[in-house]
């Protein structure tokens, strides 16, 4: 049973003073997140990531389609008991301390009273919040500290599914490292993790599968390796002999010369033409190497495509 399933999920907002002009935030999204995987939901800012997550969490009602969470409905409290959620830029009650806040949430998630204190301490340690901040009111917290408290409340009650909206934002490099580790740990414990991000390196390092979304539309979904392989990559060509430079430049390419060695990166399709040109100029071919495609290349390639020819 998938942890998250959506069927033709749609959200259209009405904007303007009279709410007359429709604005599509999410267009017919059908996808699933398998139990036990780390799933990355990628897209540039404003692509509809947060809207999707709010729809999944039942905070916003869809204008079309439906969502299944852990095989049930998010409106069912029994299902909600099994999920943990970190919103984007979380904000909590100013006047509570970190421990009070977690105690409150633990009570709402029906964590037995006896276990609460132990579990709160363990969770706060786990998310790396310094112990001297545990009894400080949240209004004195920095953005990074709030982010950690947010993570703590999301995993406190040992949910089966953890949904994190931009979990790395507001954190310094060490913090990001720690969150990556936390996500992997959760995954090892058998939890499903769904997180959104616009930072691709995080996704590439962590995710079993990713979905790419742009302008409210799904642009691609799959295993990271498969996705990057699907992109027609570039090839780096190096040769010796600066005399060939004008001929290559005339093909609309931008060769770089370092002493007598010249280097150019071209699309796969153009490799033959370039090599022919080099031969004609009597340049000495040194190396022809495919450039490794990253998720970023895939990402940019998908977003650059006109919406009609999106790969599914």
């Amino acid at each position, binding site marked *: 049973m998938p942890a998250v399933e959506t069927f033709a999920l749609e959200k259209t907002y009405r904007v303007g003073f009279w709410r007359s002009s429709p604005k599509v935030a999410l267009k017919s999204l059908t996808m699933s997140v398998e139990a036990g995987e780390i799933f990355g939901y990628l897209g540039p800012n404003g692509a509809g990531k947060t809207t999707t997550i709010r729809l999944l969490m039942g905070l916003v*009602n869809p204008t079309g389609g439906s969502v299944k969470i852990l095989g049930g409905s998010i*409106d*069912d409290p029994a299902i909600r008991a099994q999920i943990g959620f970190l919103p984007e830029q979380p904000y909590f009650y100013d006047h509570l301390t970190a421990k009070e806040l977690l105690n409150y949430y633990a009570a709402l998630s029906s964590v037995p009273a006896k276990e609460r204190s132990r579990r709160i301490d363990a969770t706060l340690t786990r998310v790396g919040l310094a112990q001297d901040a545990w009894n400080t009111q949240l209004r004195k917290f920095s953005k990074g500290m709030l982010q950690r408290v947010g993570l703590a409340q999301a995993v406190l009650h040992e949910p089966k599914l953890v949904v994190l909206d931009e979990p790395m934002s507001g954190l310094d490099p060490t913090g990001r490292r720690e969150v990556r580790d936390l996500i992997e740990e959760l995954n090892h414990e058998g939890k499903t993790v769904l997180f959104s991000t616009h930072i691709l390196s995080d996704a590439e390092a962590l995710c079993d599968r990713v979905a790419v979304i742009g302008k409210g539309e799904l642009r691609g979904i799959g295993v990271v390796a498969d996705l990057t392989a699907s992109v027609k990559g570039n090839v780096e060509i190096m040769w010796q002999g600066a005399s060939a430079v004008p001929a290559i430049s005339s093909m609309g390419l931008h060769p770089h010369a370092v002493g007598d060695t010249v280097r150019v990166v071209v699309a796969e399709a153009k490799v033959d033409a370039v090599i022919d040109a080099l031969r004609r100029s009597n340049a000495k071919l040194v190396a022809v190497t495919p450039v490794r495609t990253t998720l970023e290349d895939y990402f940019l390639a998908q977003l650059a495509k006109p919406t009609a020819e999106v790969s599914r």
Partner: protein
Amino acid sequence: MKHSSTNHASLVLAVLACFLFAGATAAHYKVEGIRAQTRPEEILYIPSGKTLKRMSLGYTGLLADIYWTRAVQYFGWKHKQRSVDYHLLYPLLDITTQLDPHLIVAYQFGTTFLAQAPPNGAGEPDKAAALIERGIQNNPDNWRLYYDLGFLNAMERHDYVAAAQAFARGSQVPGAHPFLKVIAAAMAQHGGDVETARLMWQTTLETTEDAMIRQNAQKHLQALASDDAVLKLEELVRQVKERTGVQPRSFIDMVSAGYLRRIPTDPLGRPYKLRPDGRVEVQDPDSLPFISQGLPPGYQPTRPIVPGLAK
């Protein structure tokens, strides 16, 4: 698509809301019933018009209107309650007119209802005079106020000289009702007679804009007409007895004997009663609150009414 439990909860909430609101409405109705029986003595939070004027932050017009409404409602309520105690009427009117010195209707209302004897008024003609004098000071160009002062002096204080003076002063004001001169003259000659009273009530009736004052004037005119009719009927009965030696037993007898064309009725259309001793009585003295003739022996007003206030 919403989960069915959400829809279910919405339905339950909607039904519950309806039930609770029905309960609230019933309780509200009941509360107003209790309050109508036991409405506590009203008091003024701030008894000084000057203080209020300062506290009103300049919104004196609105505040005056609120106090004016309170004054009218206070009087109306007390009157409905058959109260003889109207001690707040003067302060309310005083504050109202301090907040808005040009609220003519408040002076007029005050003159009428402060002066009349309880239960038809507060029975404070001197305070009424003070109020109207202040009204004249603040609005020297309004002839109606002079008229009201004269009226008050004549009808309630029986000071016909002062009344004539007031009417004369009023007649000098540009645009004054021409009647003022007539009344001033009548006042000087026949101070307390019924015809003058009738003339004055008639003028009030024709010139006032306030419904309560108009209806009050109407009641007075009806009372004057009724008193007149009762005296005439009693005189007729006496004459019949003199002529025939027999005391007529009823108006029906007198009609069949040809002394009357039909059964006489009071201004409200109710037949008069003829008592065995020859006295004429009105059927419902409560509906003619200002009559002095035709009252049943030992009559006490039980249900004084100012039309328009009583529901």
